[in-house]
């Protein structure tokens, strides 16, 4: 395999939430590196800080201290415009609750990031149709999100995340609201995207189905990295879980 560069670098990130009188430290100093093209799962129980870490990596939330580098650029240094550009072009987001824009059709949801990115309407429509076909939604371009099943909505969200050919896809519990079979389909689709398009995929999840496709798994417990495992180590781990 060719030399891969580091696409995400997280350096001693802390995040403290002020909840009235109490202060909750969701992240207590997380440091990690992710290489381009990797499929990473951030695993951990609810409340362990994985979503907080995920938001910090995606530039959706500012860490209290510490730095996040995307392509060696410290995202805390970006102005509003550059940050919007980063979210538009570099990163694609997928959420547990799909977060499609309800008033728009599937196709319009997919083309919106392209329009923000300055693409003209015809080109965007063409690309949007191609992306929806890619995720297996050939005949549902003009359906609104309410008219689609959960799995179909998540497919639209995946197509949308790919809109501007991002380098990174961040998926927060992408299978959390889906049944087992649909969840598996979505995981398979994500894996295919990472293979075919060489996109770095980072998921925050507690879905064990995700383990089988991940290159590395980062276990977060109580705001700290508990362990980072490669796939080889993982198979043993999964075996243990199954045999238990």
């Amino acid at each position: 395999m060719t030399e891969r560069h580091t696409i995400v670098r997280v350096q001693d990130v802390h995040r403290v939430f002020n909840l009235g009188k109490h202060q909750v430290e969701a992240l207590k100093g997380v440091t990690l590196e992710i290489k381009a093209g990797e499929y990473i799962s951030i695993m951990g129980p609810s409340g362990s800080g994985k979503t907080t870490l995920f938001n910090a990596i995606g530039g959706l939330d500012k860490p209290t201290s510490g730095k996040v580098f995307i392509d060696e650029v410290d995202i805390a240094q970006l102005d509003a415009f550059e940050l919007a550009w980063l979210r538009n072009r570099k990163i694609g987001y997928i959420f547990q609750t799909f977060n499609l824009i309800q008033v728009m059709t599937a196709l319009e949801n997919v083309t919106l990031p392209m329009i923000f990115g300055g693409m003209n309407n015809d080109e965007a429509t063409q690309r949007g149709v191609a992306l929806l076909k890619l995720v297996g939604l050939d005949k549902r371009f003009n359906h609104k999100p309410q008219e689609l099943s959960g799995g179909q909505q998540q497919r639209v969200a995946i197509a949308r995340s790919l809109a501007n050919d991002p380098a990174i896809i961040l998926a927060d519990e992408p299978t959390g609201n889906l049944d087992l079979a649909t969840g598996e389909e979505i995981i398979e689709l994500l894996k295919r995207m990472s293979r075919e398009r060489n996109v770095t995929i980072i998921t925050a999840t507690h879905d064990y189905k995700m383990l089988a496709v991940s290159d590395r798994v980062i276990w977060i417990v109580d705001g700290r990295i508990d362990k980072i495992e490669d796939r080889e180590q993982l198979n043993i781990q999964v075996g243990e879980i199954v045999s238990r």
Partner: protein
Amino acid sequence: MRQHETGNSTDQAIRKIVVLPLRIALEISVKSLRVRFFRNMLTVMTLVLAVAFFTFVLVSSDLARGLWNSGDPALAQTLEKAGFDLPAPGESLASTAKERWLVALSLLVCMVGIINAQLMAVTERFREIGTMKCLGALDSFVLRLFLIEAGLQGLAGSLAGSLLGLLIAMALAMLRFGLAAAAQASPAALGLDVLAGIGVGLALSLIGVFYPALVAARMQPVEAMRAE
């Protein structure tokens, strides 16, 4: 490979654009308005009523002024009977302080109503706003979408309200003073009244949405999406 491209600074400058063309913004706004038709009708109705009252008062006093300026003593008498405080002959009929107070208060109430309605409407859409920001929308995109929506609502509401106010004022004046009321009125003054109504309505609508939209636009995406 993509990473090498972005390393080039001139290339970066060209590619680093995030835009929301006005036509698309308009399209999105109209769509949002259509989807939430009944909620929007409520907001618009507040505006219609306030603007109708505003225009009604303006037009009524213009009509009375027209009658007074005609110099016809019979008409002056009916005016007095209708409760107008008539000035000395030769002086013009001014609007009373009470009238001005009523108008100002009605506009104030309407403003509070509209801010309230828009605050609800914006809060309801936090998730949508957060999502848009994740897709690369700038704060200004969000602000623009809401201002366009409020502008369209304001235009529709104040146009309807203004015409409604004009019609009611005319009908009422003709009932009380006969056809002379319409005959003596200056069309230019009435036209100005309608325009003033539209202007005030539009301003109310835009001012009402500005604060909620600004709050929403400045939120961090996660905050916006966490809010339910």
